[in-house]
């Protein structure tokens, strides 16, 4: 089998990440439109067999696995060698990955080597009926425009897809598919970049993975007031994000920052507290499914984006809200 639609499934410590299943949702739709099979690619070490089967249960027809020590953690050179092997062997028509720190590093590197077109951070993927080309839609210029891009003559058509921009594919009963283990020559798995250590974020912040984000802005006034935000976040099982102001003042660390010079997020629910909503902040969160804002200023820009907002003092509103949510 050559051609077809392929996704890059991402793993961490041998377990597949949620974005892999979101990509399956995209892939299932595209493969159906193109009437072609759907493949999934896994790079890692000791990836759980159940997880590989889960890719098939959730929509993949074929899973190609490279399992080797040097692939345990992402490094661009060995991962690119394996990806280029898949491209050469299976000649994908379409190849998509998550717009994660991994995908946004690996894909542009591979696209050059494979002489392929690549579109970054897409929020919409479709097939153009007349030509069967992939139509890739993405926000640009800080979300001021949506651009649709295609790759008419180069294959594979490559794209990274914004995490959380689609739900993960559910399991379907009775699905079958093949799992193929491929080997890579050891010398092609060497990397000039080595990972020496890893330090996990202290309060398990993973904004990219969070369904609900409570974001705090300058309205919180000082770091000593942050426990209020954390209490709300905890009640909702949410991650805590921050505007640039809050990070620049040292109240929260950089991994919390959302916006142009921080992270771009797309959660189900975004709760902005004391966030004015600068253009730079909005660029990082406007694709959230539902947006809620609490701010003292009725003219705050954030309200223009919000589905629901409360104009009021956050030090009154948030405690009352926590109480109501807890009961």
């Amino acid at each position, binding site marked *: 089998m050559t051609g077809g639609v392929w996704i890059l499934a991402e793993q961490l410590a041998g377990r597949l990440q949620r974005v892999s299943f979101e990509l399956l949702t995209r892939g299932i739709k595209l493969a159906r439109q193109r009437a072609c099979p759907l493949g999934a690619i896994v790079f890692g070490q000791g990836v759980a067999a159940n997880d590989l089967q889960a890719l098939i249960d959730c929509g993949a027809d074929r899973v190609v696995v490279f399992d080797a020590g040097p692939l345990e953690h992402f490094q*661009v050179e060995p991962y690119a060698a394996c990806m280029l092997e898949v491209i050469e062997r299976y000649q994908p028509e379409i190849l998509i990955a998550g717009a*994660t*720190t*991994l995908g*946004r590093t690996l894909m*542009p*590197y591979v*696209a*050059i080597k494979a002489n*392929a*077109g*690549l*579109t*970054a*951070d897409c929020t919409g993927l479709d097939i153009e009926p007349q030509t069967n080309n992939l*139509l890739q839609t993405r*926000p*640009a*210029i*800080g*979300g*001021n*425009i*949506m*651009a*649709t*891009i*295609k*790759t008419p003559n*180069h294959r594979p058509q490559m794209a990274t897809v914004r995490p959380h921009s689609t739900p993960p594919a559910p399991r379907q009963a009775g699905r079958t598919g093949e799992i193929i283990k491929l080997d890579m020559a050891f010398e092609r798995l060497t*990397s*000039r*970049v080595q*990972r*020496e*250590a*890893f330090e996990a974020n202290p309060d398990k912040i*993973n904004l990219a993975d969070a*369904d609900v984000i409570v974001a705090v802005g300058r309205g919180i006034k000082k770091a000593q007031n942050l426990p209020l935000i954390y209490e709300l976040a905890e009640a909702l099982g949410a991650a805590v994000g921050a505007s640039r102001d809050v990070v620049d003042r040292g109240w929260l660390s*950089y*991994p919390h920052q959302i916006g*142009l*010079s*921080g992270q771009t997020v797309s959660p*189900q*629910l975004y709760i902005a507290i004391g966030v004015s909503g600068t253009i730079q902040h909005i*660029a990082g969160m406007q694709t959230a499914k539902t*947006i*809620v804002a609490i701010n003292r200023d009725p003219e705050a820009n954030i309200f*223009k984006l919000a*589905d*629901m*907002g*409360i*104009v009021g003092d956050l030090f*009154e509103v948030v405690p*009352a*809200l926590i109480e*109501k*949510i807890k009961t």
Partner: protein
Amino acid sequence: MEKRIIVCIKQTPDTRSVKMDEATGTVIREGVPAIVNPLDLYAIEAALNLRESYGGEITAVSMGPAKAIEALREAISMGIDNGVLLCDGAFAGSDTWATSYALAGAIKHLGGVDIILCGERATDGDTGQVGPGIAAWLDLPVATYVSTIETIEKKTCRLRRCVETGYETLTAKLPVVVTVVKEVSNPRLPTLRGKQRARQVDIPILTADDLKLDKSKLGLQGSPTRVVKIVKPKITRKTTLLTVKNEATLDQATGALAAFITETCK
């Protein structure tokens, strides 16, 4: 242990003042101030810090229309030593594939580099693909989302990389392409002396022929991707706004919001 550093920068429209032509759905660039891509300032500052620690020379490279020379002058006014502008009709319409080919050609032309620094992405295109693309064209290692450049040795460097779940500590062989995030530095403002120097410094302008580039890999025709449509996203949200004035409205508003949040989280 002096280091040769190249910083790749882009001149972008100030996205804070971008306006849309509602009728045609295109971006109005006229009258919009052009600035150095804000995320490139962190790369410029990181380069300056490295020069202060280790000595060496920094060259800023940019590709763009003739007026992009202003971006290079701004970098020089912050303290960058030299600038090089890639400017040629053959470059016009290049996507990230073709842009990284041209920039890689310029880096090869300059020669003998230890570290190539790039901002995480440009705030107009928002792709972040050019940094890793340059590494691929030059067949160099690349570290992205770098938040700290800890040390540089003779042949290696030690970096911290900010990923979704935490920070990786990496060692990389030189030469290396490094793309940086905001946390890496706190960009300085241009100085008066820097501005004076920036006005006087000769900035070479290089064409595709100067760099001996294959023109079939440049510009619109050399770019694998095509923009087929641009639209302004419609704001479809309808905002329900509740105002707190007293105890009763506080109770009402928070009750309604709690119900809305609980419903959304289901």
